[in-house]
């Protein structure tokens, strides 16, 4: 066996080993969360899942129209006869692993692009870190900050459905990035996909991935579709102002992207209809979407939202600080930043009327935005380290960013220990 093949095998082994560890962690988290009466896992498994019986299937769907996690649990439990709690844990493991392997694949593609072919092990380590990362928690800062809710994170391990959507979010991000590249330049060879032939195939992939994300939980699409829309609208207006004849072609691209979003939007509309009009929202009778005062919902969990943002997003914000032009000019950076800002605005101004205001269901889109910022910042830092760390000052700043990343990872580790008791 030559050296390259050995390295490849070792890379695969590392990725798989870390995947197994990650799955075990998720299993332990689910098992420790399930007995707690107020936990999300407990609610989904013991309150909503029993509604998915033959007689009350519609009631079940109305109560929780984002059914992917529940469907997988039902499949494992009813068809494979795995005990209910274990089915819940396995189901979460499947989605967590999907997201983990996707991050591995994305980072590996980035490394390959930088000329590092044998980079699977590194990609695995970073993906593992990114999967467990949490906000920086300092118990001494304010003992009253609720560890879970004051500091939101891209990995809300306590919620089965948001963890379920993460993999599809990343897939959509990759697809949109490569589709945009191909739209701009016909000879573009994708970073994540090969982008050979026409775009039709990739539009279908995007439509399917987006639809799956909505079936998993609509929170990502609530943030992502507006973000893509805003950026494409901006590009279209810029093309019109340039008067170079590209505006009409770009408008066609905008339409194609919109068509991709139609299945997801249709299902999302149906979800909202069942949730708010048919009063399915967990059986709550008067829940409705309302415009809140600025940050009204988040203020229930944190007394200093800027501090919470800073602690939850220290690493991505530091990368933005180092290289702001990337997040303003390049597609991936702009998409992540716009997504995060739109998610933040939704968290700031949207809520559900009492008694569900404290459920903070419009903070989830921001967490999806956080995930995009985290992944893009990590990819950017990897690129910067390999291409631009040519002076002591730059190396110092890049090391500072890595330091912050690993502090987040360490906080993730301590959070998991806290969660699993």
């Amino acid at each position, binding site marked *: 066996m030559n050296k390259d093949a050995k390295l490849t095998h070792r890379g695969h082994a590392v990725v798989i080993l870390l995947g197994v560890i990650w799955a075990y962690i998720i299993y332990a988290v689910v098992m420790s969360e399930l007995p707690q009466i107020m936990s999300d896992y407990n609610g989904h498994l013991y309150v909503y899942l029993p509604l998915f019986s033959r007689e009350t299937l519609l009631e079940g769907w109305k109560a929780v129209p984002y059914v992917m996690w529940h469907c997988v649990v039902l499949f494992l439990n009813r068809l494979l006869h795995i005990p209910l709690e274990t089915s819940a844990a396995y189901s979460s493991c499947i989605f967590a692993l999907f997201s983990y392997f996707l991050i591995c694949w994305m980072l590996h593609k980035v490394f390959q692009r930088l000329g590092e072919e044998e980079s699977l092990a590194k990609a695995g380590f970073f993906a593992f870190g990114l999967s467990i990362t949490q906000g920086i928690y300092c118990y001494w800062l*304010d003992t009253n900050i609720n560890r879970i809710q004051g500091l939101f994170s891209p990995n809300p391990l306590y919620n089965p459905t948001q963890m379920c959507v993460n993999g599809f979010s990343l897939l959509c991000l990759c697809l949109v990035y490569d589709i945009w590249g191909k739209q701009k330049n016909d000879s573009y060879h994708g970073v994540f996909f090969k982008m050979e032939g026409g775009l039709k195939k990739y539009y279908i992939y995007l439509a399917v991935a987006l639809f799956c994300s909505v079936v998993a939980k609509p929170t990502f699409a609530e943030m992502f579709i507006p973000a893509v829309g805003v950026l494409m609208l901006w590009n279209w207006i810029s093309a019109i102002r340039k008067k170079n004849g590209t505006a009409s072609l770009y408008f066609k691209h905008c339409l194609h992207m919109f068509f991709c979003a139609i299945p997801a939007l249709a299902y999302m509309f149906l979800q909202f209809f069942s949730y708010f009009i048919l009063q399915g929202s967990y059986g709550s009778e008067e829940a409705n979407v309302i415009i809140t005062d600025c940050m009204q919902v988040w203020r229930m969990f944190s007394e*200093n939202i800027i*501090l919470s943002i800073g602690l939850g997003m220290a690493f991505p914000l530091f990368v933005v600080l180092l290289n*702001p032009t990337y997040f303003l000019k390049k597609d*991936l950076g702009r998409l992540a930043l716009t997504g995060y800002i739109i998610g933040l605005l939704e968290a700031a101004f949207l809520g559900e009327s009492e008694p569900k205001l404290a459920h903070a269901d419009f903070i989830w889109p921001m967490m999806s935005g956080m995930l995009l910022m985290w992944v893009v910042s990590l990819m950017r830092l990897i690129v910067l380290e390999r291409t*631009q760390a040519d002076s002591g000052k730059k190396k110092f*700043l890049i090391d500072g960013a890595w330091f912050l990343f690993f502090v987040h990872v360490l906080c993730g580790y301590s959070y998991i220990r806290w969660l699993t008791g």
Partner: protein
Amino acid sequence: MKAWLKSSAHIRRILAAVFGICITALFVFWPFSPAPLHIRLHFDEITGDRCELYYTTDTADEYSGDRCIVSQIAEGKSVDFYLDASLAEHIRGLRIDWPHQEQLLCVKSVAISSAGVVQKEFNPCTFFSDIAFQNNIAAQSMVQIRNRAYIRTNAEDPYMILGETTVSQIQKYFSRYRLTRLAICLFFFGCFFFGRRKLFAVSEEDI
């Protein structure tokens, strides 16, 4: 002409910087409404279900039920009194009521927190040595070497009224988010600075 143009660009840059600094200073020091304040007492020993905090203000100088904050004693043996932001600079007196039972309390620490940050952590020996009045407190002892305040209470209505110095000190800790606002400005200035200096470039081939 060229030199003049060059110097005028220089002057414009300086003016922009001065303008930026003025706006920042205005934003940081503008008297926005303050954050609420938490007074947290952590105990080594306490029994009972709740403690109460009464306060007087510049317009109402009697301790009465409508100016009372109740805090249940949490599992971790601590109480948390939440003082609304509207009370900032209006509090004149504070009275802590202990559980109505005979016991020996041991106070571990007193933390004053506002805007999500612990503003001051009092040594309980210092905190409870400045007492203006006390009722039904059988004895108290400050163990400096262990930083613990021991208070023996009687069953009927035991309370302590804090001294003026401590109250005025606590008043100061209602945060006005100045450091937070400064951090926001520094972040945006930093982005602007690094963006202009092009420390890390963005090229066409970049992902």
